[in-house]
Structures are given as structure tokens and as C-alpha cells.
């Protein structure tokens, strides 16, 4: 187990290097020259200014030199700057807390909503809650997230005055309740579906019959016996989604005006700012890798029959 963990951790290094290289290359390959748009919408920069700016950000170097300079910087703890002169580390450091709070809150809500819906539907398979689960899933899949977001802003922010409409000024938890809730609802569908179906599968096992024969209530059977058995795909999903949430939902961050990582990344892609894109990507990838590792380590805990080679 320890060996396995160590091996996985070591494997992260080539993964990180491979990914940063790819990401850097992709940014480099984005069509168009980022510098030309620095002056804003309409006016065009003079050629001499463009040349100076390109030099300032190493943009006139060939790709491999750029990448090497970047990597060199990273090794020295310098993650570079965006075109507005903000250091990437600062950008990430300021955005991260918002993202983490949002992601964790949404994660918990989503977990509760998704699993409860799944269990409820599983308990009443083929009956109303099951259908509700199906329609909930489809509804939130088909209705674009921003509609839900705007709608809740309207209802809870403007009409009821319960929660701030946007921004982080109100602090935690007030400012994060609504975005997290919307994010959770938006992404709970697969979870609800997955847990429902896995549970229904599991409920057909013989040991569930044993549990019934022990006089245990269906609820307890569901939560205690079936859920853990059905949890492998669910945990897989949760791991992936935790990483995705930390990557930030650009849409939700945008609508609710949360200055998180997702928005930072989106803007950086938009302005073709290699250092920022790569910086944020490394970060997200690390999250992802750790989440994947945690999930893999959880498998044998959830199901002791699973062994890691």
C-alpha cells in the first residue's frame, strides 16, 4: 500500500511535466497574437510598442526557449506574470480561497443532494421518488445553468432579500450559499443517477436479503449496507468532480462574481497568457492528481476485496 502510494506520487512528476508542456504548447498554438489586443478594443498598438511588449514577456523567443525560460522560472519559484503585471502566484493565491470555499460548499451540498436523491429513488424504485430523480436529472441537464443562477438571484436576492445577489463582500457563508447551491444542483444530476442505479443494482444482492432477515429497516439497509457496496463508481465520480469543482465553474463564478480560479483561467486563456494558464493548470492538475490518488486509495477501504497491485 505504501509502495503503491509512493509509486503514484512519483508518477505525478512526469504527469505534471507532460501536462505543463502540453498546456504551454497549446497556449502557444492558440491562434493570434495576444499582444495586439492589449490596447483594448479598437485602437491598435504601434509596432514598436508591440515589439517591446513581446520582448518583455519573452514572446519573441521560439517556443522551446519560452518554455525553458518559464520552467527555469518555475524551478526558482517564479511563476511569471500576466500582461497586467500581476504575478501569477499572487493571482492564484487571491483566487484560490474563493474557489476552495465555493468548491467545498458545493461539494458538500452536491453530495447530500445527489446521494439523498439516489437513495430515495433507490428505496422507492419505480415509484414517485424514482421518477422524481429521473426528472430532476434531466431538468438540470437540459436547463442551462445560468437560467437557474439568474432565477435564484432574482428570487432569493431581489424578491426575498435573503442572500446577496453576487460578490464576495458578504463573506462566508452568506456570499457562497447561493452559488454553491446552484453549482451543486447543476452538477448533482450524474451523482443522483449514478448512486440510484448502483444502489438498485446492489439491492438485488443476497446480503441485502440477509439484512432484511435481520429485521433492519429499508432505510438502514440502504445507507449502511447497500451504499458502501454501491460506492465505488460514486466515489470515482466524487473524486473527478471534486477536482472539477476546484477547477472552478467558470459560469457560476462569472455569474456570481466570485473571483475564483475558474475565471482567472478563463480570462488567461482569453488573453493567451501562457504563464497564468500554465500556473493555474499545474495547480488544478495537482488537485486532480491528488483527488485521483485519494480515490484510488479509498477503493480498498470501501471494498476490501479490491487490492492494488
Amino acid at each position: 500500500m505504501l509502495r503503491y502510494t509512493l509509486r503514484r506520487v512519483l508518477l505525478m512528476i512526469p504527469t505534471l511535466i507532460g501536462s505543463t508542456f502540453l498546456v504551454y504548447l497549446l497556449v502557444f498554438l492558440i491562434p493570434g497574437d495576444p499582444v495586439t489586443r492589449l490596447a483594448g478594443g479598437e485602437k491598435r498598438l504601434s509596432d514598436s510598442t508591440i515589439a517591446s511588449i513581446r520582448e518583455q514577456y519573452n514572446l519573441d523567443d521560439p517556443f522551446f526557449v519560452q518554455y525553458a525560460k518559464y520552467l527555469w522560472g518555475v524551478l526558482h519559484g517564479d511563476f511569471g506574470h500576466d500582461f497586467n503585471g500581476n504575478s501569477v502566484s499572487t493571482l492564484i493565491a487571491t483566487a484560490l480561497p474563493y474557489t476552495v470555499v465555493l468548491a467545498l460548499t458545493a461539494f458538500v451540498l452536491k453530495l447530500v443532494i445527489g446521494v439523498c436523491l439516489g437513495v430515495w429513488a433507490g428505496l422507492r424504485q419505480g415509484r414517485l421518488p424514482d421518477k422524481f430523480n429521473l426528472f430532476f436529472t434531466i431538468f438540470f441537464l437540459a436547463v442551462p445553468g445560468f437560467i437557474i443562477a439568474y432565477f435564484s438571484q432574482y428570487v432569493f436576492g431581489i424578491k426575498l432579500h435573503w442572500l446577496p445577489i453576487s460578490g464576495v463582500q458578504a463573506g462566508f457563508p452568506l456570499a457562497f450559499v447561493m452559488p454553491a447551491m446552484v453549482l451543486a444542483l447543476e452538477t448533482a444530476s450524474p451523482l443522483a443517477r449514478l448512486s440510484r442505479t448502483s444502489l438498485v443494482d446492489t439491492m438485488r444482492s443476497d446480503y441485502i436479503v440477509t439484512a432484511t432477515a435481520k429485521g433492519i429497516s429499508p432505510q438502514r439497509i440502504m445507507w449502511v449496507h447497500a451504499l458502501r457496496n454501491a460506492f465505488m463508481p460514486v466515489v470515482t465520480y466524487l473524486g473527478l468532480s471534486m477536482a472539477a469543482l476546484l477547477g472552478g465553474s467558470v459560469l457560476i463564478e462569472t455569474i456570481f462574481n466570485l473571483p475564483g480560479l475558474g475565471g482567472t483561467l478563463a480570462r488567461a486563456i482569453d488573453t493567451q497568457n501562457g504563464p497564468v494558464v500554465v500556473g493555474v493548470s499545474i495547480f488544478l492538475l495537482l488537485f486532480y492528481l491528488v483527488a485521483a490518488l485519494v480515490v484510488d486509495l479509498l477503493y480498498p477501504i470501501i471494498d476490501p476485496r479490491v487490492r492494488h497491485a
Partner: protein
Amino acid sequence: ADGTTSLVAVNNGEIGRITGAQNPGSQIAMAICEPLTGIEEDGTVFMRGAESLESDDQVNWTVKVADGHTFSDGTPITAETYVDTFNFVGAGANAMPSNYAYGPIKGYDELNPAEGKATATEFSGITLVDESTFTIEMKSPNNDVPYILSQLAFCPMPESAFADPVAYDKEPIGNGVYTLEKLDPQVEAVLKKDPKYQGWVPDGAADQITFRVYTDTNTAYQDVVAGNADLLRDLPPGLIAQGRNALGEEGLTAIDSNALETYFTWPTYLDETFPIEVRQAFSMIVDRATISKDLFKDATVPAGSLMPNSVSAYREDACGEYCTYDPDAAKALIAESGFTGTIPLNYSSENTTDAATALAVSNSAKEIGLTVEPKPVPAAALSETINSYELDGPVIQLWGSSFPAASEWVASVYIDANYRLKYTDAEGQAAVDAALAAPSQEEADALWQKSEDRILADQVIQPLYQQVRYIAHTTCATPHHAGGDQQIYRTAVTCS
């Protein structure tokens, strides 16, 4: 609470560079900067940092700097400050994005060679005379200098800024009405009125302005409706209709003098592919009136001129028949030209209104059997294609003036750095030069119109529509603009 007034303005998107750039930090820069001149609502110029600005020949301009004005940190501002700033920003090597504004000044080309190293470090056209006086020599006669100097590009910077302009940008030391108290580029910027500031203060200017970053217009709008934010400019079409209901007359202000216009531009290197009849026909299948009214719900007005109504040389229908929707005539023109190909209509994929326009044009072209392919291109790629003269068809371009003068509109078509059309026309150019040297506005206007007619006749750039700035605001804020350009810090505020 204590009688101080405050304004929360919506900043569309992250606060980027504040100093020396156009967007998106310019609204903040305006508030912390006192340029030499200022522009009134009706578009006329008044002195701010300058005591006087004079010229006999429109070439050599003498600037007298007002006495006793200082930076917010107390450093006095002298003529030398301006000269140093101009030499700094004007030099391409310093990588200041606002460098382009110095183009008309003599010596610019030496400081900004198209290739290679600069051959000078200072403008040959700028001379320090004494403590409070300096002179500017233009490349050619230019009566727009009072306007030019009102631009943010000419804001004075303290000496400390030159060493590291990027760091300065995070903690700018201005000389304007406000000082920057707090800057969090992803959240907000807070400005406070500078008690030591000596110059002109707009009526009703708030004691404190918060530029709050909004990444989503709809959210910003909802916050204005809820009273959490006071001012939001540039409402999209869908929200204008909404705003009329929710905010009513007193909450929705349209600035009726426009400063943004959208064109179709046809690079001249494509003249072979798209002969003039095709371009004319293209322009005639565009139903400008319906586009503005139905597609954009009056967020735009149809344009029949290359200049907007904020300019005195403006004529409502300079373009004439070619800007009038007439599919039959268009069909005839196409038939005449024998053109059978496809016209790719380029636009920036980030721009949703351009996308809608392109689709509308494509649809109405189909009615006369002409194929127009809407072609969204990522913004940076589009600029690059334009800059490298590699377009394959017309492109939808937006133009905004920095000051309300005809030169910003008509003259810029002739300057290849702007639209990159490779357009030259001796007669038109001559009219432009004459207009810039003209002693009176009337004479100038006539010349501007003449050169505009030349451009329109060549059909290199076709007016489409002008954006109407719609501003959603709370009742305590009265929006203000300078010659069609809204300047947030000049908003009159009544609430505390």
C-alpha cells in the same frame, strides 16, 4: 452616514491596467488623472492641468502649466513633469500601450521605428521652455491638439513611475480628483476624493467611488435593480427592454450622442475579388433600420455616415442609396458584376452582436441568391489576420473615438495603422490635411465631409450602426458624459 456621498459603479470585467492604457482600467485612470485639457458634455474643450494652450499655426503649440497643481503625494507638477512623461510614454521601447496617441507629434517616428532600434530617446518636437512652459511641435498642422491632450495617454506621471511602470500601475500616484485607496484587480477598486486636489471638480462628484468588478452583465444589472450597485453602462439589447420596465425613465439613461460605430470594412487588397459593385450590393442588402430596431431593440441606431452624431461634421445620410436597404438593386448590381463566389464575413467570435449582424446579413443575402458566410474568428486571430493583411473578406469592426472630433473618424481611415485597409486616396488625404489645418470649425467640417464622401464612394468602409450607450443606474446617480464618452467619475451623486 456622515453626509459623504458614494457611488458604486460596475466595472465590466477584471480591472486591467490602469495607467497608460485604453481599457479596461481607463475609467479609474480618468478619475485619478488630471490631463492638460478636459472635454465638456457638448464636446468643447476646457483647460484643466494647463493654464493655456495656444498656437498660431496649428503646428507649434505652447502649453502653460497651471500653477500649484501637485500629485496626490504632494510632488509639484511642472512643465518638466509633462515633458518627461511624454518622452517616456511616447518611446516605443517603454512598452506603454497608449503610445499610439503620440503619433501626430514630431519625432514620433524616430522614437518608434517600424523596425530596429529607436534613433532618439526624446521627441524632437517637444521642448521645455521654463518651469511652467513647454512647446509641442506637430508633424503637420493639427487643430485637434486640445482634444489630443485631453487623452489619458497624456496624464502626467511622477518620476518614480518611469523606473517600473508596471509596479506604478498597481499603485498609481495621480494628480486628479480622486486617489486610489484600494485595488484588488479581481474584486474592486476604491477611490477617494483627494482633499488636496486644486483643479476642476465635476458637479456632484461623489466623495467615494467604488469600481466593483462584475464579470456578468446580467448580474450587474440585477444588482443595480436591487440597489446594490449604482451605475452600469452598456446594457445589452435584452436588458434594455427589461430595464425599461424594471427601472423606468429615471433608472435608464441613453446617451444620445454616440461615440461608437460599427462598420463593414473591405481591405483594398481584396478589390479584385470583391469589385465595387459587389461591395455596394453587399451594403444594400443590409437592412440597417430593422437590424437596429428588431434585432438590437434600439440598442443601436442605423448609421448613414462614417461619423457619429457627437461630431459637428455629422450628416445623417452621407452614405445615400448604398446604405439604404434595396435587395432588388443589390441583385442587379451583383448580376452586373458577374460575381458568383462566397463572401466570408469575418467578425470577432467574442462579439455577440457582430455575430447576430453577420447572420442577419447572411440571411438577407440568401434572398437575392448571394452567399455570405458568417465567419467568427477568435479575437486575437482576427487582429493578427487584419494586421498582416491576410483577410479573405469583409470584416465587422467597431471603432470608438478618443475625443469628439471628426479626425478621430474620417482621418483614421486613411491611417493604415487603424483599420489596415491599405487605403490611399490623394484627394481625400488632401482634404483631411486641409481640415486639420482649417482655421474655423465650419471650414473644417466641409473638408471632413468631403473626405468622407471620397471614402464612401470607394466603398472601403461601410457604416452599419452606431451603438447607443444605455446606462442603468439608481436614482441617486445621474450619468454624465463628455462628448458622447461616458465618464463615470463625473456622475452626479446624491446619495450617501
